[in-house]
């Protein structure tokens, strides 16, 4: 008991000494980190504004459209009432509910909970979908305008800083944990001065963990400040989890550096190896496993899919004369409504026929994609970098999961939309002015952390475990570390 008490002080002493040694490097690195983070948050804020401007405009446009239509309907209804005529519309007019139903309502995906921190995949993802009577799976997604060159280079967001740059900063201060001192003979002197090697290493690691924590606090303050500036709520719980993951990730890189040092490599070799491992982790492993996966489980070509869809539509068009009759047979309740709504019903029956015809193609396509995603979920564990990045994007809401969830919500909103309009269409009721403000609207329900836990928990555990193994193993190696050169002098 007394041993551990007495060994704590030397560790802290070593840590303080190390921080002093690293001082000038730290000033540089902190400066770099500040600049990079500021740039990252700036570009995050710009992208966020780009997206919210678009969302706002879509909504404004929708309101304008509805106001205009509502006014027209009000005027017409008044005229008809004045003349004492029936209100039932003919199927092509704006008073027919089928027209509003086909016009639809925009389903907007708002910015993610930590959007200012992570741009992630969002520029490539659908930001809004017009919910109509057509199957949303067949609709063209609506993305915001994005610069193709920027999509290619990728965005410089804070997640990029954390995933790609933070390891390099940590490598820069820890590749030479003991290698330089070993080579110069300082290590021998240090040990003769008292204190064990393990205390020395623990002290050195403590200093670097302190640096990591300091950097993360700096980032927290900046990210919080940035979200105040762009007037975006800052979800502290999510940020806290993000910090936890970052600590594990940082510890992983420290553990790796410590391990190579414990293996008695030369400082330059350690630096070269860490750089190579970094490249393996960020690019080579994920890039090549993605490529291999796409080759082994190929998704059918998009352009073939388009053509199949067009062929289905064309077939439906050529058969459209028979379609209505069949549709009527399927829905005997419609016969009562009379022939006025024939056009609207024809449209509906076409939508349905197309959806049915294309379903097998959509299903094959989707099942291949799903299969890829399933394998990819496992393959990401080949590189801790990918695991970390995926976890961060989930927390920030810029990854594939949130988009997937959005599509599910759009689908269910579509079903709701259909159910809302079908009775009116079938009965050929006229739209009333107030109907334009009463249709169902889409409101995205954010994915709960609880729903993300099935992915987040294993990812966090993986990173933590990996860091613990590396650190533990390197300490074990240091336990048997020989300070003397093994080669004859």
């Amino acid at each position, binding site marked *: 008991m007394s041993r551990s008490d007495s060994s704590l002080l030397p560790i802290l002493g070593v840590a303080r000494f190390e921080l002093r040694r690293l001082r000038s490097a730290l000033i540089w690195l902190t400066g770099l980190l500040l600049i990079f983070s500021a740039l990252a948050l*700036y*570009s995050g804020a*710009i992208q966020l504004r*780009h997206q919210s*401007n678009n*969302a*706002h*405009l*879509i909504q404004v*446009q929708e309101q304008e459209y509805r106001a205009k239509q509502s006014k027209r309907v009000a005027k017409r209804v008044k005229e008809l009432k004045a003349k004492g005529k029936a209100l039932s519309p003919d199927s092509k007019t704006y008073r027919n509910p089928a027209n509003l139903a086909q016009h639809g309502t925009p389903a907007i995906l708002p910015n993610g909970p930590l959007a200012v921190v992570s741009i992630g*995949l969002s520029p*490539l*993802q659908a930001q809004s979908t017009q919910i109509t009577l057509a199957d949303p799976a067949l609709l*063209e997604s609506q*993305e*915001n*305008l*994005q*610069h*193709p*060159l920027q*999509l*290619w*280079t*990728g*965005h*410089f967001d804070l997640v990029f800083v954390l995933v790609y740059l933070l390891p*390099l900063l940590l490598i*820069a201060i820890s590749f*030479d944990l003991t290698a330089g001192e070993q080579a110069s003979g300082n290590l021998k002197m240090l040990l003769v001065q008292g204190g064990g090697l393990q205390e020395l290493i623990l002290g050195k690691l403590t200093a670097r963990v302190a640096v990591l924590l300091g950097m993360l606090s700096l980032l927290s303050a900046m990210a919080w400040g940035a979200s105040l500036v762009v007037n975006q709520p800052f979800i502290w719980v999510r940020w806290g989890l993000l910090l936890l993951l970052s600590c594990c990730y940082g510890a992983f890189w420290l553990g790796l550096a410590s391990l190579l040092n414990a293996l008695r490599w030369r*400082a*330059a070799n350690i*630096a*070269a190896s860490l*750089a*190579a491992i970094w490249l393996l982790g*960020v690019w*080579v492993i*994920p*890039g*090549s496993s*993605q*490529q291999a*996966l*796409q*080759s082994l489980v*190929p998704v059918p*070509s*998009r*352009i073939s899919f*388009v*053509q199949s869809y067009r*062929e289905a539509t*064309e077939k439906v068009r050529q058969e459209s004369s028979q379609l209505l009759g069949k549709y009527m047979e399927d829905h005997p309740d419609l016969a009562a409504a009379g022939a006025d709504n024939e056009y609207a019903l024809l449209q509906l029956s076409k939508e349905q026929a197309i959806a049915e015809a294309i379903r097998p193609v959509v299903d094959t396509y989707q099942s291949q*994609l799903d299969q890829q995603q399933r394998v990819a979920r496992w*393959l990401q564990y080949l590189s801790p970098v*990918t695991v970390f990045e*995926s976890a961060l*994007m989930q927390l920030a809401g810029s*990854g594939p999961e949130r988009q997937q969830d959005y599509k599910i919500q759009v689908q269910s909103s579509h079903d709701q939309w259909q159910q809302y309009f079908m009775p009116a269409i079938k009965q050929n009721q006229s739209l009333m002015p107030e109907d334009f403000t009463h249709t169902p609207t889409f409101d995205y329900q954010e994915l709960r952390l609880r729903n993300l836990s099935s992915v987040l928990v294993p990812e966090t555990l993986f990173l933590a475990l990996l860091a613990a193994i590396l650190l533990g193993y390197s300490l074990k190696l240091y336990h048997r570390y020989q300070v003397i050169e093994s080669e004859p002098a």
Partner: protein
Amino acid sequence: MAQTEAIWRIVAGQELKMLWRSRRFKLLMLLSTLLFSLAMLTGWQHARDYREAYNSVMGRQNEMFERQGELNPHSATHHGVYAFKPWSPLSSWDPGLLPYLGSAVMLESHKQNFDRYRAAQDQLSLSRFSPVTLATLFQYLVPLFVILLAYSMIAEERENGTLKLLLVQGSSPLQLFYGKAAALAIALAILVLPVLGLSLGLMAIGGGAIPWLRLVPFIGAYALYWGIFIWLALLVSARSGSSRSALLILLGVWFINALIVPRVGLGWMQAQHPLPTAGEFQREIAKEQDALPDWDARTEKVKAALLKQYGVKDIKALPVNLEGAVLQDNEADDTRIYAEHFARLYSRYRRDEELYSQLGWLFPTVAIQSFSQALAGSDYQHHAHFLSAAEQYRFDYVSFLNNSITKAQGQDAFKYTAGNELWKQVPDFHYNEPSAADVLSRSAPSLAALGLWLLLLVGATPFVLKRMQVVS
């Protein structure tokens, strides 16, 4: 003089011998070979799949269009056709922007559409850095390969004291430098030449002519680019205090070139001049379209013009179908409005691409990327070329069909139908890439930037080496 030549050869031979024995070299070779094999295979497979899909889809679409049966020609323009982007042979070496650009554009009347179906949207989220392609390996991995081999080549000789010995034995610093550069070049050739040979073989098997006019400058530019890194790495190794600091400096150069500059440079340009949002873009167009005359006003206008043109008093006496002419008049207005807005947006993209490539004067990686994408046909300029050809075709075929109504004098324009004979007469869309000469003259500055970099480094070498410290 004969002896001067011999010395760099001796040094080169020695360096190769030592490289050959080092574990570092073997590991790097193994890793690179694996990655290159993967890149070649997947690139070839992707090209093959795309070409197959393209050919089949083109055939199916033509057949569908030509057999759509009795239909109003203007309705046919509403059904539309797709213009699919053909595969450019070198783009399996450098897909560049292609995954982020649409592979098809819907061509229909009244509007110009955005290109759709970007491959990146279906891609997995495993890798956010860059796909593993021949080009990215050439751009990122090969320089790193050079750096990891070269950083210690001179600095370590100084640390070990062998540098003094070498100089006393009769080698000059310059000869030593050239010998080491030659060794690196040979090591690189051993890695890259088989890759180039195999890729060419795969391209030849895949059918189609090998685009030599694009290929030769493409490879030449990469040779310059690698030369820059060989020279830079050795110069840094010669000048820095230790192999460790040489390594850190070189990794920093690589990192800034590969990761920081592209993202930050482009992000900065975007921040200065933000793009319009999709909503704004559509809204602007809609505003102008709303200002166009409505159907009745337009009919009056076209009627007056036609009566005047044919010198008759009554529409019944016109040799053409008035409504057909009105449709076409409307199409011309719509086309003009869309063309203006799209041209503004696309030229914005093009201008940004050009501006960005100017960064190549400072950062060789940017220069090689711009040049490589231009030659491979995977840059935005090529895409814009395709889009404008598609838009031209759209207007032509829509006009052709509208005019077929105009010719149907005395018929109700909206009930008039045509049959398969008419569809067969509609010309097909054939797209030809810009010529290699055009591309070369446009992207010459990037090549010049690479040449200049290498020239400067080579020219500076004697001066830098003159002040090289022999004693550590």
